[in-house]
Each structure stands twice: as C-alpha cells, then as structure tokens.
C-alpha cells in the first residue's frame, strides 16, 4: 500500500517536472532563436558571409542615431507614463477604498470601460486632438495617451493594496493631527510600497511594448523602440538587426522584472 502510493507520487513528480520543462522550452526557444539571429549577419555584406556569426547588427544599432536614440525616447516616455499614472491613481484608489460616495459602484465599471477601449478605435481622434495641442512627436504625448489603459489597471491594483491597510491607521493618524497628504506620504505609502511596485510593473509592461498609439503619435520624430523597429521592415528586412534591436529592448524589461520579483511572488488579491 505504502509502496504503491509512493510510486504514484514519484510518477506525479516526474509528470509535473516534465510538464514544467516543456513550459520552459516553449517559453525560451523563441528567445534562443532571437539571440542566435541577432548575432548572425542575415543580409549579404562585403567581407561577411550571409549566415555567419557576427556582431555587425549591434554595431549597426550604435551607428544609427534613429535606433540608439529610440532607446532613450522609449525610456523617457515610459518613465513619464509610470510617474503620471501612479501620481493620479494613488488618490483615486484611496478615495475608492476609503470613502462611500454617490456613484462609487459605477466608478469601477467606468474604469473597466476605459481599459477595454480598443486602441485602434481611439487612434484617429487622438492624433487630431494631440496635433492641435502640439503633443505629436513628443514622448509626453505617448505617455499621456497610454494612461487611458494604465490608469484603470493602476487604480484596480492600488485599491486592493490600500484596502488591506486597516482603516484605523488613518483615523489614528488624523487624531494625531496628520493632514491627509502628510499621512499619505509618511505612513500609507511605505505600507503599500510593494503595491506601487506591482503597479509600476504592470504600467511598464503595457506601455513599453505598445505599438498602435506609438505609431500615430510619432510621425517624424521622437520614435520609440517599437517604431524604430517598424522602420526596419521593408522589401529586404534585415531580420538580424530586428532581433538585435529586440534583444536590446528586452534589457530594461529584464531589469524591471528583476526588481519586482519579490513583490509579485509575495502576492496580491484584486477586488472584484
């Protein structure tokens, strides 16, 4: 009896291990392909045979002001977006978590409506509107328009973190003479720091890789990485250069994942 169960346990562990190994393969093999291609010369060139190992793609990135400049543009607009989103989402999440007010049940539905608005739907009017106020070709424009899907997510996540902080803490602080802003910065923020981290991760993730808005808002300049890559597609696409650029664009993402790893694993529950 005992032996049978331990044997089936062993089988189970083996099956789980095999399954997780397949997940690893499925996830990592395309990346492996990408790395290999990025170190391969994929177009015929003088002095380098096609398909040969080479660092030409990375040298090309450094040599092109469009490509290397796009990395800076991307970092600027994503940082702006994360900062704006968290700054406006924090008070909103606090209000939804702590106050009962007319229409509070509808705020969540409203937020969902914004998150699910398809970007393609908004492209045309956003371009016309932003052209009028001079936000085209500037990182600020992209940062602002990405708020439309990031603010709802940010409020959703932050609200659940704030709700996990006992309300009595607010009341004690107010009795001690704290003003709301001071309480917010001095006491609440340190408690929900990991929530802010998780929110920043999600905002970064949705903003860094976005293509539709980024394309219409960068006509002549200020192109982020995604759009710089778009210019590489053509009649004879240098796929090695595209992959090298993708590899470079992954580095900040990797850094963000590394910084956030503990907070994600620690866990959070969002409110329905």
């Amino acid at each position, binding site marked *: 009896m005992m032996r049978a169960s331990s044997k089936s346990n062993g089988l189970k562990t083996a099956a789980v291990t095999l399954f997780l190994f397949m997940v690893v393969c499925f996830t990592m093999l395309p990346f492996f392909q990408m790395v290999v291609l990025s170190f391969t010369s994929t177009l015929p060139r003088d002095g380098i045979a096609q398909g040969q190992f080479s660092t030409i793609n990375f040298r090309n990135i450094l040599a092109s002001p469009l490509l290397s400049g796009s990395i800076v543009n991307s970092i600027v607009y994503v940082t702006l977006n994360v900062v704006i989103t968290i700054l406006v989402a924090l008070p909103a999440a606090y209000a939804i*978590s*702590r106050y009962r007010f007319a229409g509070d049940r509808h705020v969540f539905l409203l937020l969902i409506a914004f998150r699910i608005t398809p970007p393609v739907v908004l492209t045309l009017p956003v371009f016309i509107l932003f052209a009028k106020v001079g936000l085209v070709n500037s990182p600020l424009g992209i940062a602002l328009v990405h708020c439309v899907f990031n603010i709802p997510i940010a409020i959703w996540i932050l609200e659940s973190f704030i709700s996990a902080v006992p309300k*009595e803490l607010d009341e004690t602080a107010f009795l001690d003479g704290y003003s709301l802003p001071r309480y917010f910065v001095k006491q609440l923020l340190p408690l929900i720091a990991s929530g802010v981290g998780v929110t920043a991760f999600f905002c970064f993730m949705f903003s860094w890789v976005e293509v539709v808005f980024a394309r219409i808002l960068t006509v002549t300049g200020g192109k982020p990485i995604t759009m710089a890559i778009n210019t590489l597609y053509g009649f004879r696409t240098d796929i090695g250069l595209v992959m090298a650029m993708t590899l470079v664009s992954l580095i900040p993402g990797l850094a963000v994942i590394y910084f956030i790893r503990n907070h994600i694993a620690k866990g959070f529950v969002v409110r329905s």
Partner: protein
Amino acid sequence: MRMHRLDCGATLGPEQCFGPNLFHRYFQVPACRSVFQTQSTEKTSEKTVTLSSPYRSEIQTSSAWWLLLPALSVLAFVGVLPLLTIFNYSFFDIFTLESRFWIGTEWYREILSSSRFFESLARSLVFSAIILSIQIPLGVFIALLLPRDGKTGMAFLMMLALPLMVPWNTVPSMWVSFLGNPAGFGGRFLAMFGVDFDYKFNALHTWILLVAMDTWHWIGLVVILCYSSLSTIPPAHYQAAAIDGASRLQVFRFVELPKMSAVLMMALLLRFMDSFMIYTEAFRVNAGGPKDATTFLSLDLGEEIAAFNYGPAAARSIIYFMIVLAIAWSFRTIMNIRRDQTLGARQR
C-alpha cells in the same frame, strides 16, 4: 439602501470583527456571517456591498470626488474627448476635416449590412474563444503547479514574464523566424515529424501560428496574476482542508478558486479584450491572409484608417467599442450572479 449599508457597518464595527480587514478577507468570521444572513433579504446584487462595507469609511462625502479628479481628468482628455470626437465624425462624410457633409447613420447601415463585417466579427469571436479556453486553464494549471515559495517558483515567474516585455511588432517576427522558417528551431522540429508548415498559404497553419504566438506572449500574465493571488492563501486553509479530508479537486474548488476569482476576472477581461482586438501581431504575420482567413475586426478598421476614410472608420470604431462594452458588461453580470449564488449557497 444607504440606511442599510450604514446600519450594517455599525453592527459590524471593527471591535466585533477583530479590526484588521485582512482578517476578514482570510477568515469568514462567523459572527459577521450571521449578520449577513439576517440582513440578506435585500436584492442579491447588494450583498457584495454589504460584504465590503466593514472595510470602508461610512462617511458619505463629496471630497472623494476631489481625490478622483486628477485621474478622471486625464481619462477625460485621452479617453472621453476622442470618443466623443469619433462619435461626431461617424455621422459625416469627410473629405477633409474642414469640408464634411452630414449623412446621418448611413455608415452604420453600410457596415452592419455588409457580410464582410459579420465574417470578421465571427473570426474575432472564434479567435478570442480559442485564446481564452487555452490560456486561462493553462495559466491556472501552471500557477498551481509552481512551487509556492523559494527560488524555483520565482525563477519561473521571471521567465514567464519575459515574453510580456517583447515589443508587439517583433513578436510576429520572432515566431515567423522560429516556426515559420524551415531553418528555425521550431521549423526544423516540425520538419522532423514530416510536417510541412506553411503559414503563408495554409489557413489552418496561420491560425495555429497565431494561437501559439499569442499563448507564448500572454500566458505569463495569467500565471503571474493567479500565482500572486494563490500565494496569499494562508497555510491554515490547506491544513483545515486536509483535516476535512478534502480531495485535490475540492481544495481547488473551495479554497483556491474563490481566492482567485477576482484576479481571474481581471485576467479574463484583459485577455478577452486584447485578443478580440488583436492587430499588430495578426497583421505582421500574414496581413489577414490567406484569403482573409485571419482578417479580424481590427484589421478591417486599420485598413480604413490607412485609407483616410474618416467617416466609415469612425462609425466602425463606435460599433467595435459598443461590442466590446456589451461583452465586458455581460461578463461582469454573469460573474456577479454566479458569485452571489455561491455566497448564498455557503450562507445556507
């Protein structure tokens, strides 16, 4: 309704329910539940309000709107204003933005009477259905299998988050050179089994490539969301289930699933919306081909915007927005009804 909430909040004061709301969230305090029972004569949808009321301040205040103001004004500028603009455009025939003619609902009638629209809609719905039925169960499954603490689980999460950071317009390039190219690792693997993978001209293969690519791209999001809610379940709950002799399935059904429900709702909505309106990925792989077999709703719209057909594009955008809104709303309604039912069942 207001009175009821206030009343309930008063009965369920912190002193009765042991203060910290975390405690409520993890343990259903019997005393509180009995109060819900006696007061649950209200409409079912109000129960959720009753449940959340102990964590909230009961002061009715308009100052809350001041705190919401920054977020709402940004959303109004980048969300509401463009939507209104496009709603306005959809009733005009527009040559240039200065010269336009009012034509009423003609664009709407034209789109809604074309078979192409309904074919694209069907394709988008089927695509979303496939994506959701693969990614949600698979994501939950992986999250359940991952070790809950220690380095292995974290390493897995970090790995699964990696595809989320790949620019959307290079995801198709990666997959085409991985699977679509005979020299790629995936292509060679398929050739080993004698599969002649032809994503350009074989519709089924294009669909397989799109589904595999989307699953690779987004499965991490589902796993991260599920994993993070699973790791908030205290070990005591598992111990209690073990003492009761619960099977693995019962532990999932009664301990883990309730904890994940909200997060799953979020994953469902995000995955539905992004797959239903898939644009960049589908366009880059095969531009809607072969023979329109992967022409989804958004590709039709993209075509119209690229051709500067402002009027039809605007009408189409409004129709899409309405479809998405309707589906999301019904999702939510169904989820709420089901949750209320399970809550009701547990109280009985």
